[in-house]
């Protein structure tokens, strides 16, 4: 279960309101896509979901409990760039989550527990199609492969929420299509709740079960920061389940 409730959420900076009056109920297993023009607060909303920042008013509940004040293993994330660790190979990147969980002091597993972790990692690496590159460093991978790795790395901790911040923004169209298939398959298999920020409308409507558009409903031309963005459309989509 991973159900998200957002109650009267506001995000205000000095002299600027970014988000105002956000209310949302997201059922477990939804694929939410956040779209809207640049600077309309969709990435800020994702950062709030990740607890990179704290809302100034209101609250976000995950399964009825207030979100912790800092990022944690209950919420996985894939950024557009810099989502994988450059000094670790593919396998090392993926087992890292298990090592953090299993070895508080050294953050590194040895012997049998390491072999178990690697076996588990191999399954996830296989699922994202990176088996052939298992011993390569991220810089030796293409952009699409790096994002596959970032997803695999996230999934191994079995997060309740998967947060994607324009994860396919830097990829070419062919690779994007492959990534859509991959993320859709993983989303179904893992039954995970996904929030994805994008400014590609087509991508949003391809993937989402629910599209949330962010925009400002009130604009004061003399004071652009006076009003914040909110959710202007909340479209549940009927998604073909292949």
């Amino acid at each position: 279960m991973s159900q998200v409730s957002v109650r009267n959420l506001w995000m205000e900076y000095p002299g600027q309101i970014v988000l105002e009056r956000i209310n949302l109920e997201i059922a477990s297993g939804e694929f939410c896509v956040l779209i809207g023009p640049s600077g309309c607060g969709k990435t800020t909303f994702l950062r709030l979901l990740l607890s990179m920042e704290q809302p100034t008013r209101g609250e976000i509940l995950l399964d009825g409990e207030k979100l912790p004040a800092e990022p944690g293993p209950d919420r996985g994330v894939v950024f557009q760039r810099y989502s994988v660790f450059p000094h670790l190979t593919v396998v090392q990147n993926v087992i890292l989550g298990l090592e953090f969980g299993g070895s508080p002091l050294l953050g590194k597993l040895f012997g049998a527990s390491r072999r178990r972790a690697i076996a588990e990692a191999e399954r996830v690496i296989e699922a994202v199609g990176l088996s052939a590159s298992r011993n390569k460093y991220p810089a030796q991978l293409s952009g699409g492969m790096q994002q596959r790795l970032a997803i695999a790395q996230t999934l191994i901790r079995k997060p309740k929420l998967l947060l994607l911040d324009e994860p396919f923004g830097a990829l070419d169209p062919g690779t994007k299509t492959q990534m859509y298939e991959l993320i859709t398959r993983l989303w179904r298999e893992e039954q995970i709740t996904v929030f994805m920020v994008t400014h590609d409308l087509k991508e949003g409507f391809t993937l989402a079960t629910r599209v949330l558009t962010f925009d400002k409903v009130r604009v004061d031309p003399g004071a652009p920061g006076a009003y914040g963005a909110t959710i202007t459309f909340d479209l549940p989509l009927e998604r073909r389940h292949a």
Partner: protein
Amino acid sequence: MSRRIINRRPDRGGRIAWGAFPFILAIIAYFIFSALRLADNPNDKLLPGLAAFGAAIHRMAFAQDMRTGEILLWVDTLASLGRLAMGLAVATLLGLVFGIATGVIPYVRSGLSPFIAVVSMVPPMAILPILFIVFGLDELSKVVLIVIGITPFLIRDLTLRVTDMPGELLIKAQTLGASTWQIILRVVLPQMAPRLADAIRLSLGPAWLFLISAEAIAATDGLGYRIFLMRRYMAMDVILPYVAWITFLAFMMDWALRVFNRRCFPWLASTDGS
């Protein structure tokens, strides 16, 4: 069509030849002027010839000293390298600990970075007298001078490198369940190790400078001590080979650190340029 000169590159042999050219030129120039002076005055000490160098090198590097029974060059080299290694080791350790702590932990950064910014502006040579007073004239004060001289740079450089790391990586590590300690150990430290080696490479010059200065002022052995001792006799036939030897040692240390980086951090080669 001849290409612009910025587009013309020497091939492998050409690079070696062009690289050797200034060295050969300098050596030829030296011996021409040396020969001219020696023709005027066979006892000239300023630009000794090959024979004088040979004798001096044999005396310093291969023959036992008449007074102590030791081979001076090796005694001096061991003494200097010992001090340098000690100073570099302590400075590296301090730089690593404080650099990473300052870069990763905001409270440490707020507490330490103004202090380090001010301390790094203190000219180390200006406090050398204080070191001699506090730590005495023996080994400790020389090591402390090296440490004081290069640690602030190492800390500041490393702090910058840590804060330059994409914030996404630290967030990502937290979403994988890492504690602060685990983040430092598994994410920050491995990525900083090659940066630290680079910072040490840049510090080698200053470290030698501080070492030789300290040895020149108060020591009974060491490469810097010997050079300044020989100055009294204008013994250029000893001083110049010593300078060449010091240069060689410094160059080898720099080279070793570069090779260390290439060998130990294979991920680095593929990251550079991206």
